[in-house]
Protein backbone atom coordinates (compact mmCIF):
# COMPACT_ATOMS: atom_id res chain seq x y z
CA UNK A 1 0.00 0.00 0.00
CA UNK A 2 1.75 3.12 -1.21
CA UNK A 3 -0.91 5.71 -0.55
CA UNK A 4 0.39 8.05 2.16
CA UNK A 5 -1.60 7.95 5.37
CA UNK A 6 -3.88 10.87 6.15
CA UNK A 7 -3.22 12.94 9.29
CA UNK A 8 -6.35 11.44 10.78
CA UNK A 9 -5.20 7.84 10.20
CA UNK A 10 -1.89 8.66 11.82
CA UNK A 11 -3.74 10.19 14.78
CA UNK A 12 -5.76 6.98 15.19
CA UNK A 13 -2.62 4.88 15.39
CA UNK A 14 -0.89 7.42 17.63
CA UNK A 15 -3.80 7.34 20.08
CA UNK A 16 -3.56 3.55 20.25
CA UNK A 17 0.19 3.76 20.89
CA UNK A 18 -0.22 6.46 23.56
CA UNK A 19 -2.68 4.25 25.44
CA UNK A 20 -0.49 1.17 25.05
CA UNK A 21 2.58 3.02 26.34
CA UNK A 22 0.58 4.47 29.23
CA UNK A 23 -0.44 0.95 30.24
CA UNK A 24 3.23 -0.01 30.23
CA UNK A 25 2.76 -2.18 27.17
CA UNK A 26 4.06 -2.06 23.65
CA UNK A 27 7.37 -3.55 22.69
CA UNK A 28 10.18 -1.12 21.90
CA UNK A 29 11.14 -2.65 18.51
CA UNK A 30 7.52 -2.55 17.36
CA UNK A 31 7.20 1.11 18.36
CA UNK A 32 10.48 1.93 16.71
CA UNK A 33 9.35 0.32 13.49
CA UNK A 34 6.07 2.21 13.56
CA UNK A 35 7.83 5.55 14.17
CA UNK A 36 10.33 4.84 11.38
CA UNK A 37 7.50 4.16 8.91
CA UNK A 38 6.55 7.83 8.55
CA UNK A 39 8.32 10.95 9.85
CA UNK A 40 4.97 12.45 10.87
CA UNK A 41 4.29 9.72 13.41
CA UNK A 42 6.69 10.99 16.09
CA UNK A 43 4.77 14.28 16.29
CA UNK A 44 1.40 12.56 16.32
CA UNK A 45 2.53 10.31 19.17
CA UNK A 46 3.77 13.26 21.24
CA UNK A 47 0.48 15.04 20.69
CA UNK A 48 -1.61 11.98 21.64
CA UNK A 49 0.45 11.45 24.78
CA UNK A 50 0.03 15.11 25.69
CA UNK A 51 -3.75 14.85 25.18
CA UNK A 52 -3.85 11.83 27.48
CA UNK A 53 -1.88 13.78 30.07
CA UNK A 54 -4.18 16.79 29.74
CA UNK A 55 -7.24 14.55 30.13
CA UNK A 56 -5.81 13.18 33.39
CA UNK A 57 -5.23 16.69 34.72
CA UNK A 58 -8.65 17.84 33.70
CA UNK A 59 -10.24 14.88 35.46
CA UNK A 60 -8.23 15.62 38.60
CA UNK A 61 -9.73 19.09 38.64
CA UNK A 62 -13.26 18.61 37.41
CA UNK A 63 -14.48 15.13 36.77
CA UNK A 64 -13.44 12.88 39.60
CA UNK A 65 -16.29 11.15 41.45
CA UNK A 66 -18.56 10.47 38.53
CA UNK A 67 -16.83 7.27 37.40
CA UNK A 68 -18.62 5.50 40.23
CA UNK A 69 -22.11 6.81 39.58
CA UNK A 70 -22.48 4.99 36.27
CA UNK A 71 -25.32 2.60 35.51
CA UNK A 72 -23.00 -0.25 36.37
CA UNK A 73 -22.10 0.21 40.04
CA UNK A 74 -18.56 -0.70 40.89
CA UNK A 75 -17.59 -2.65 43.95
CA UNK A 76 -14.97 -1.21 46.27
CA UNK A 77 -11.58 -2.29 45.15
CA UNK A 78 -10.69 -5.36 47.19
CA UNK A 79 -7.12 -5.22 46.08
CA UNK A 80 -6.80 -1.86 47.78
CA UNK A 81 -8.20 -3.25 51.02
CA UNK A 82 -5.79 -6.12 50.95
CA UNK A 83 -2.84 -3.93 50.12
CA UNK A 84 -3.85 -1.64 52.98
CA UNK A 85 -2.63 -4.08 55.60
CA UNK A 86 -3.50 -7.30 57.34
CA UNK A 87 -3.46 -9.43 54.20
CA UNK A 88 -6.28 -11.38 52.64
CA UNK A 89 -8.00 -12.27 55.92
CA UNK A 90 -8.81 -8.66 56.78
CA UNK A 91 -10.97 -8.17 53.72
CA UNK A 92 -13.34 -10.90 54.88
CA UNK A 93 -14.08 -9.43 58.33
CA UNK A 94 -16.39 -6.63 59.33
CA UNK A 95 -15.70 -4.39 62.34
CA UNK A 96 -12.28 -4.10 63.84
CA UNK A 97 -10.56 -6.28 61.26
CA UNK A 98 -11.79 -4.20 58.35
CA UNK A 99 -11.09 -1.00 60.26
CA UNK A 100 -7.47 -1.96 60.58
CA UNK A 101 -7.32 -3.11 56.99
CA UNK A 102 -8.58 0.24 55.79
CA UNK A 103 -6.13 2.44 57.67
CA UNK A 104 -3.45 3.88 55.54
CA UNK A 105 -1.10 6.82 55.52
CA UNK A 106 0.12 8.93 52.63
CA UNK A 107 3.05 11.29 52.42
CA UNK A 108 4.23 13.45 49.53
CA UNK A 109 7.70 14.79 48.83
CA UNK A 110 8.48 18.28 47.62
CA UNK A 111 6.92 18.79 44.20
CA UNK A 112 4.88 15.58 44.39
CA UNK A 113 1.15 15.80 43.76
CA UNK A 114 -0.54 12.50 44.39
CA UNK A 115 -3.97 11.11 43.67
CA UNK A 116 -5.21 8.63 46.25
CA UNK A 117 -8.46 6.85 45.40
CA UNK A 118 -10.25 5.42 48.46
CA UNK A 119 -12.16 2.13 48.59
CA UNK A 120 -15.51 3.96 48.98
CA UNK A 121 -15.08 5.75 45.64
CA UNK A 122 -13.83 9.00 47.17
CA UNK A 123 -10.69 10.59 45.85
CA UNK A 124 -7.99 12.55 47.65
CA UNK A 125 -5.53 14.71 45.74
CA UNK A 126 -2.56 15.44 48.01
CA UNK A 127 -0.45 18.56 47.47
CA UNK A 128 3.33 18.95 47.84
CA UNK A 129 5.03 18.18 51.19
CA UNK A 130 1.88 16.91 52.86
CA UNK A 131 1.02 13.95 55.06
CA UNK A 132 -2.28 12.38 56.05
CA UNK A 133 -3.78 9.25 57.57
CA UNK A 134 -6.95 7.67 56.24
CA UNK A 135 -9.08 5.36 58.35
CA UNK A 136 -12.26 3.94 56.90
CA UNK A 137 -14.36 2.95 59.93
CA UNK A 138 -17.82 1.35 59.75
CA UNK A 139 -19.60 4.57 60.76
CA UNK A 140 -16.97 7.16 59.91
CA UNK A 141 -14.46 8.01 57.22
CA UNK A 142 -11.74 9.79 59.13
CA UNK A 143 -8.80 11.71 57.66
CA UNK A 144 -6.06 13.18 59.79
CA UNK A 145 -4.21 15.86 57.86
CA UNK A 146 -0.85 15.90 59.60
CA UNK A 147 0.82 18.40 57.34
CA UNK A 148 0.19 20.46 54.20
CA UNK A 149 -2.86 20.45 51.97
CA UNK A 150 -5.26 18.11 50.22
CA UNK A 151 -8.46 18.22 48.18
CA UNK A 152 -11.20 15.71 48.83
CA UNK A 153 -13.88 14.54 46.42
CA UNK A 154 -16.18 12.65 48.74
CA UNK A 155 -18.44 9.82 47.55
CA UNK A 156 -21.92 10.22 49.03
CA UNK A 157 -22.63 7.96 52.00
CA UNK A 158 -25.19 9.29 54.48
CA UNK A 159 -24.36 6.49 56.93
CA UNK A 160 -20.68 7.32 57.01
CA UNK A 161 -19.71 10.99 57.36
CA UNK A 162 -16.35 12.05 56.03
CA UNK A 163 -14.37 14.05 58.61
CA UNK A 164 -11.04 15.77 58.08
CA UNK A 165 -9.08 16.69 61.20
CA UNK A 166 -6.21 19.17 61.16
CA UNK A 167 -4.86 20.19 64.58
CA UNK A 168 -8.06 21.00 66.50
CA UNK A 169 -10.07 21.96 63.41
CA UNK A 170 -12.69 19.49 62.12
CA UNK A 171 -14.38 19.55 58.73
CA UNK A 172 -17.33 17.28 58.06
CA UNK A 173 -18.93 16.33 54.76
CA UNK A 174 -21.37 13.73 53.50
CA UNK A 175 -20.89 13.87 49.73
CA UNK A 176 -19.09 16.93 48.44
CA UNK A 177 -15.71 18.26 47.37
CA UNK A 178 -13.41 20.57 49.29
CA UNK A 179 -9.78 21.31 50.13
CA UNK A 180 -8.10 21.76 53.49
CA UNK A 181 -4.75 23.44 54.00
CA UNK A 182 -2.99 23.55 57.31
CA UNK A 183 -2.09 27.02 58.62
CA UNK A 184 0.02 27.84 61.65
CA UNK A 185 -3.09 28.91 63.60
CA UNK A 186 -5.67 26.54 62.15
CA UNK A 187 -6.80 25.66 58.62
CA UNK A 188 -8.06 27.12 55.38
CA UNK A 189 -11.04 25.35 53.86
CA UNK A 190 -12.23 25.79 50.27
CA UNK A 191 -15.43 24.14 49.11
CA UNK A 192 -15.77 23.30 45.41
CA UNK A 193 -19.04 21.34 45.57
CA UNK A 194 -21.87 20.88 48.09
CA UNK A 195 -21.65 22.01 51.71
CA UNK A 196 -19.30 21.21 54.59
CA UNK A 197 -19.41 21.99 58.27
CA UNK A 198 -16.34 23.09 60.26
CA UNK A 199 -15.67 23.48 63.95
CA UNK A 200 -12.88 23.43 66.51
CA UNK A 201 -12.56 20.50 68.84
CA UNK A 202 -14.38 21.12 72.12
CA UNK A 203 -16.17 24.24 70.84
CA UNK A 204 -19.88 24.47 70.06
CA UNK A 205 -19.75 26.96 67.13
CA UNK A 206 -20.27 25.44 63.70
CA UNK A 207 -19.44 27.17 60.42
CA UNK A 208 -21.46 26.11 57.37
CA UNK A 209 -19.39 26.52 54.21
CA UNK A 210 -21.06 26.34 50.83
CA UNK A 211 -19.64 25.68 47.36
CA UNK A 212 -17.52 28.57 46.12
CA UNK A 213 -16.71 29.77 49.65
CA UNK A 214 -13.47 29.99 51.61
CA UNK A 215 -13.29 29.74 55.38
CA UNK A 216 -10.25 30.34 57.54
CA UNK A 217 -10.59 28.63 60.89
CA UNK A 218 -8.06 30.50 63.01
CA UNK A 219 -10.13 31.26 66.11
CA UNK A 220 -10.79 34.85 65.01
CA UNK A 221 -14.50 34.19 64.54
CA UNK A 222 -14.58 35.19 60.86
CA UNK A 223 -17.30 33.96 58.50
CA UNK A 224 -16.99 32.03 55.20
CA UNK A 225 -16.37 34.30 52.20
CA UNK A 226 -17.63 33.69 48.67
CA UNK A 227 -14.61 33.52 46.33
CA UNK A 228 -15.22 30.99 43.51
CA UNK A 229 -12.59 32.54 41.22
CA UNK A 230 -9.92 32.41 43.89
CA UNK A 231 -10.78 28.79 44.69
CA UNK A 232 -10.52 27.68 41.09
CA UNK A 233 -7.23 29.49 40.75
CA UNK A 234 -5.79 28.22 44.04
CA UNK A 235 -6.77 24.63 43.37
CA UNK A 236 -5.04 24.61 39.98
CA UNK A 237 -2.23 22.77 41.83
CA UNK A 238 -4.30 19.61 41.37
CA UNK A 239 -3.43 19.88 37.68
CA UNK A 240 0.19 20.74 38.46
CA UNK A 241 -0.39 24.37 37.55
CA UNK A 242 0.03 27.75 39.17
CA UNK A 243 -2.43 30.40 38.01
CA UNK A 244 -1.38 33.99 38.66
CA UNK A 245 -3.89 36.80 38.40
CA UNK A 246 -2.16 39.99 39.43
CA UNK A 247 -0.16 38.30 42.19
CA UNK A 248 3.08 39.83 43.42
CA UNK A 249 6.16 38.17 41.95
CA UNK A 250 7.48 37.52 45.45
CA UNK A 251 4.33 35.53 46.32
CA UNK A 252 4.47 33.64 43.03
CA UNK A 253 8.12 32.76 43.69
CA UNK A 254 7.20 31.51 47.18
CA UNK A 255 4.60 29.23 45.57
CA UNK A 256 7.16 27.75 43.16
CA UNK A 257 9.56 27.26 46.06
CA UNK A 258 6.99 25.04 47.82
CA UNK A 259 7.28 22.61 44.92
CA UNK A 260 10.88 22.74 43.75
CA UNK A 261 14.27 22.15 45.31
CA UNK A 262 15.60 24.70 42.85
CA UNK A 263 14.61 27.93 44.58
CA UNK A 264 13.70 31.25 42.98
CA UNK A 265 15.39 34.21 44.63
CA UNK A 266 14.33 37.74 43.74
CA UNK A 267 17.19 40.11 44.38
CA UNK A 268 15.43 43.35 43.53
CA UNK A 269 12.66 44.75 45.78
CA UNK A 270 10.97 46.61 42.93
CA UNK A 271 10.84 43.45 40.82
CA UNK A 272 9.49 41.49 43.81
CA UNK A 273 6.53 43.86 44.01
CA UNK A 274 5.65 43.69 40.33
CA UNK A 275 2.31 42.05 39.64
CA UNK A 276 1.99 39.15 37.25
CA UNK A 277 -0.58 37.22 35.27
CA UNK A 278 -0.13 33.79 33.69
CA UNK A 279 -0.51 30.02 33.87
CA UNK A 280 2.62 28.03 34.65
CA UNK A 281 3.67 24.47 35.36
CA UNK A 282 4.58 24.17 39.04
CA UNK A 283 7.60 22.03 38.20
CA UNK A 284 9.03 24.62 35.81
CA UNK A 285 10.29 27.51 37.92
CA UNK A 286 12.78 28.52 35.26
CA UNK A 287 10.12 28.92 32.54
CA UNK A 288 8.25 31.15 34.95
CA UNK A 289 11.33 33.20 35.85
CA UNK A 290 12.21 33.67 32.18
CA UNK A 291 8.66 34.70 31.21
CA UNK A 292 8.55 37.16 34.14
CA UNK A 293 11.96 38.55 33.25
CA UNK A 294 10.97 39.00 29.61
CA UNK A 295 7.76 40.77 30.59
CA UNK A 296 9.39 43.06 33.14
CA UNK A 297 12.70 43.70 31.42
CA UNK A 298 14.54 41.95 34.23
CA UNK A 299 17.37 39.42 34.12
CA UNK A 300 17.63 35.76 35.09
CA UNK A 301 20.73 34.08 36.40
CA UNK A 302 20.08 30.36 36.83
CA UNK A 303 22.28 27.56 38.12
CA UNK A 304 21.59 24.09 39.46
CA UNK A 305 20.29 25.24 42.86
CA UNK A 306 19.04 28.78 42.42
CA UNK A 307 17.23 30.92 39.89
CA UNK A 308 18.00 34.57 40.52
CA UNK A 309 15.64 37.17 39.19
CA UNK A 310 16.51 40.85 39.28
CA UNK A 311 17.78 43.85 37.39
CA UNK A 312 21.48 43.75 36.68
CA UNK A 313 21.65 47.32 35.41
CA UNK A 314 19.14 49.94 36.48
CA UNK A 315 17.61 51.84 33.64
Amino acid sequence: MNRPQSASEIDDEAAAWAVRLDAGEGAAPELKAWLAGDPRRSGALLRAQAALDLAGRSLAVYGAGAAFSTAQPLRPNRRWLIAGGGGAIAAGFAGAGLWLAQSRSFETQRGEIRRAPLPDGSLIVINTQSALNVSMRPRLRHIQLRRGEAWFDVAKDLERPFVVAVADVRVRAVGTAFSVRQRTDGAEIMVTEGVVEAWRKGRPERARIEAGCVFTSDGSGGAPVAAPERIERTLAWRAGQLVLDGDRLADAAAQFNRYNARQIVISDAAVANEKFVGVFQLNEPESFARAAAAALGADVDADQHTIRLGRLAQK
Partner: protein
Amino acid sequence: MEQTRNEIVAWVAGQILPHEREVRGWLRRSGASDADIDDLVQEAYCRLAALSSVAHIGNGRAYFFQTVRNIAVERMRRARVVRIDHVTEIDALNVIDGEPSPERVAAGRSELRRVSDAIEELPERCRTIFKLRRIYGLPQREIARRLGVTENVVEMQTARGLRLLMARLLKEDVDETKAAPADEPAAKRKRDR
Protein backbone atom coordinates in the same frame (compact mmCIF):
# COMPACT_ATOMS: atom_id res chain seq x y z
CA MET B 1 20.29 19.08 30.53
CA GLU B 2 18.25 16.20 29.09
CA GLN B 3 14.66 15.86 30.10
CA THR B 4 12.72 12.63 30.34
CA ARG B 5 10.04 11.84 27.81
CA ASN B 6 7.40 12.21 30.55
CA GLU B 7 8.60 15.72 31.38
CA ILE B 8 8.38 16.74 27.75
CA VAL B 9 4.92 15.18 27.37
CA ALA B 10 3.73 17.06 30.48
CA TRP B 11 5.14 20.29 29.14
CA VAL B 12 3.45 19.81 25.77
CA ALA B 13 0.17 19.03 27.59
CA GLY B 14 0.43 22.24 29.60
CA GLN B 15 2.05 24.69 27.21
CA ILE B 16 1.37 23.59 23.62
CA LEU B 17 -1.78 21.52 23.26
CA PRO B 18 -4.06 24.11 24.97
CA HIS B 19 -3.10 26.60 22.23
CA GLU B 20 -3.62 24.29 19.26
CA ARG B 21 -7.15 25.46 18.57
CA GLU B 22 -5.90 29.03 18.53
CA VAL B 23 -3.07 28.19 16.14
CA ARG B 24 -5.45 26.34 13.84
CA GLY B 25 -7.90 29.23 13.96
CA TRP B 26 -5.13 31.62 12.99
CA LEU B 27 -4.06 29.40 10.07
CA ARG B 28 -7.64 29.10 8.89
CA ARG B 29 -8.13 32.86 9.00
CA SER B 30 -4.89 33.14 7.05
CA GLY B 31 -6.44 31.10 4.27
CA ALA B 32 -4.86 27.68 4.81
CA SER B 33 -6.86 24.61 3.80
CA ASP B 34 -7.80 21.98 6.39
CA ALA B 35 -5.24 19.55 4.98
CA ASP B 36 -2.49 22.18 5.12
CA ILE B 37 -3.43 23.05 8.68
CA ASP B 38 -3.22 19.39 9.72
CA ASP B 39 0.17 19.10 8.02
CA LEU B 40 1.65 22.25 9.54
CA VAL B 41 0.47 21.44 13.05
CA GLN B 42 1.67 17.86 12.81
CA GLU B 43 5.07 19.01 11.59
CA ALA B 44 5.31 21.40 14.55
CA TYR B 45 4.73 18.47 16.92
CA CYS B 46 7.38 16.48 15.05
CA ARG B 47 9.91 19.22 15.69
CA LEU B 48 8.98 19.26 19.36
CA ALA B 49 9.31 15.47 19.48
CA ALA B 50 12.85 15.81 18.18
CA LEU B 51 13.93 18.02 21.10
CA SER B 52 15.81 16.43 23.99
CA SER B 53 14.79 19.27 26.29
CA VAL B 54 12.21 22.05 26.26
CA ALA B 55 13.65 23.90 29.25
CA HIS B 56 14.93 26.71 27.06
CA ILE B 57 11.44 27.58 25.78
CA GLY B 58 10.01 30.36 27.92
CA ASN B 59 6.62 30.75 26.31
CA GLY B 60 5.09 27.63 24.76
CA ARG B 61 2.33 29.51 23.02
CA ALA B 62 4.68 31.92 21.26
CA TYR B 63 6.99 29.02 20.39
CA PHE B 64 4.12 27.08 18.84
CA PHE B 65 3.04 30.03 16.68
CA GLN B 66 6.61 30.77 15.63
CA THR B 67 7.36 27.15 14.77
CA VAL B 68 4.23 26.84 12.63
CA ARG B 69 5.03 30.09 10.89
CA ASN B 70 8.60 28.98 10.20
CA ILE B 71 7.41 25.70 8.74
CA ALA B 72 4.89 27.52 6.54
CA VAL B 73 7.51 29.96 5.31
CA GLU B 74 9.99 27.15 4.58
CA ARG B 75 7.38 25.28 2.59
CA MET B 76 6.46 28.32 0.58
CA ARG B 77 10.13 28.83 -0.21
CA ARG B 78 10.35 25.26 -1.41
CA ALA B 79 7.24 26.01 -3.49
CA ARG B 80 5.17 23.46 -1.73
CA VAL B 81 1.46 23.99 -2.00
CA VAL B 82 0.50 25.84 1.11
CA ARG B 83 -2.06 28.53 0.67
CA ILE B 84 -1.39 30.93 3.45
CA ASP B 85 -1.84 34.45 2.27
CA HIS B 86 -0.90 36.36 5.33
CA VAL B 87 1.35 34.01 7.16
CA THR B 88 3.84 36.72 8.02
CA GLU B 89 1.18 38.75 9.75
CA ILE B 90 1.54 36.72 12.88
CA ASP B 91 3.07 39.70 14.67
CA ALA B 92 0.01 41.77 13.98
CA LEU B 93 -2.06 39.23 15.88
CA ASN B 94 0.00 40.06 18.92
CA VAL B 95 0.90 36.49 19.75
CA ILE B 96 4.65 36.60 20.00
CA ASP B 97 5.09 38.80 23.05
CA GLY B 98 6.17 37.06 26.22
CA GLU B 99 3.64 38.68 28.48
CA PRO B 100 0.60 36.60 29.31
CA SER B 101 -2.64 38.58 29.31
CA PRO B 102 -5.60 38.02 31.63
CA GLU B 103 -7.56 36.70 28.63
CA ARG B 104 -4.88 34.10 28.06
CA VAL B 105 -5.01 33.03 31.69
CA ALA B 106 -8.74 32.56 31.36
CA ALA B 107 -8.19 30.61 28.14
CA GLY B 108 -5.73 28.26 29.86
CA ARG B 109 -8.21 27.58 32.62
CA SER B 110 -11.16 27.08 30.31
CA GLU B 111 -9.12 24.54 28.33
CA LEU B 112 -9.11 22.12 31.28
CA ARG B 113 -12.85 22.64 31.65
CA ARG B 114 -13.31 22.01 27.94
CA VAL B 115 -11.41 18.73 28.19
CA SER B 116 -13.53 17.63 31.12
CA ASP B 117 -16.76 18.53 29.25
CA ALA B 118 -15.52 16.53 26.28
CA ILE B 119 -14.86 13.54 28.54
CA GLU B 120 -18.40 13.76 29.92
CA GLU B 121 -19.72 13.58 26.36
CA LEU B 122 -17.92 10.33 25.54
CA PRO B 123 -20.07 7.23 25.03
CA GLU B 124 -20.79 5.70 28.43
CA ARG B 125 -18.59 2.62 28.41
CA CYS B 126 -15.77 4.57 26.88
CA ARG B 127 -16.13 7.26 29.55
CA THR B 128 -16.20 4.83 32.46
CA ILE B 129 -13.09 3.05 31.25
CA PHE B 130 -11.35 6.33 30.58
CA LYS B 131 -12.05 7.62 34.06
CA LEU B 132 -11.10 4.42 35.84
CA ARG B 133 -7.82 4.48 34.02
CA ARG B 134 -7.00 8.18 34.27
CA ILE B 135 -8.36 9.12 37.70
CA TYR B 136 -8.13 5.99 39.71
CA GLY B 137 -5.06 4.71 37.96
CA LEU B 138 -6.46 1.18 37.85
CA PRO B 139 -4.46 -1.23 35.69
CA GLN B 140 -6.12 -2.36 32.46
CA ARG B 141 -6.41 -5.89 33.80
CA GLU B 142 -8.33 -4.65 36.85
CA ILE B 143 -10.70 -2.53 34.76
CA ALA B 144 -11.32 -5.49 32.47
CA ARG B 145 -12.09 -7.70 35.47
CA ARG B 146 -14.52 -5.19 36.98
CA LEU B 147 -16.40 -4.57 33.79
CA GLY B 148 -16.31 -8.20 32.66
CA VAL B 149 -14.58 -7.49 29.35
CA THR B 150 -11.21 -8.43 27.88
CA GLU B 151 -8.13 -6.27 28.33
CA ASN B 152 -8.09 -5.70 24.62
CA VAL B 153 -11.52 -4.06 24.83
CA VAL B 154 -10.29 -1.78 27.61
CA GLU B 155 -7.29 -0.73 25.55
CA MET B 156 -9.37 -0.14 22.42
CA GLN B 157 -12.01 1.83 24.29
CA THR B 158 -9.39 4.04 25.95
CA ALA B 159 -7.75 4.75 22.58
CA ARG B 160 -11.17 5.45 21.07
CA GLY B 161 -11.96 7.84 23.94
CA LEU B 162 -8.67 9.64 23.49
CA ARG B 163 -9.25 9.97 19.75
CA LEU B 164 -12.81 11.31 20.19
CA LEU B 165 -11.49 13.71 22.79
CA MET B 166 -8.77 15.07 20.51
CA ALA B 167 -11.18 15.46 17.59
CA ARG B 168 -13.77 17.11 19.79
CA LEU B 169 -11.26 19.61 21.20
CA LEU B 170 -10.31 20.87 17.77
CA LYS B 171 -13.79 20.89 16.30
CA GLU B 172 -14.92 23.81 18.39
CA ASP B 173 -12.49 26.22 16.90
CA VAL B 174 -14.62 26.50 13.77
CA ASP B 175 -17.23 28.31 15.86
CA GLU B 176 -14.57 30.24 17.70
CA THR B 177 -13.23 31.67 14.47
CA LYS B 178 -16.63 33.09 13.72
CA ALA B 179 -17.12 34.24 17.29
CA ALA B 180 -13.77 35.99 17.58
CA PRO B 181 -13.60 38.91 15.21
CA ALA B 182 -11.34 40.66 17.72
CA ASP B 183 -8.21 39.64 15.83
CA GLU B 184 -9.42 41.03 12.51
CA PRO B 185 -8.79 44.74 13.09
CA ALA B 186 -5.21 44.03 14.12
CA ALA B 187 -4.58 41.97 10.98
CA LYS B 188 -6.24 44.58 8.87
CA ARG B 189 -4.17 47.40 10.30
CA LYS B 190 -1.04 45.60 9.30
CA ARG B 191 -2.29 45.03 5.79
CA ASP B 192 -3.22 48.68 5.44
CA ARG B 193 0.18 49.92 6.44
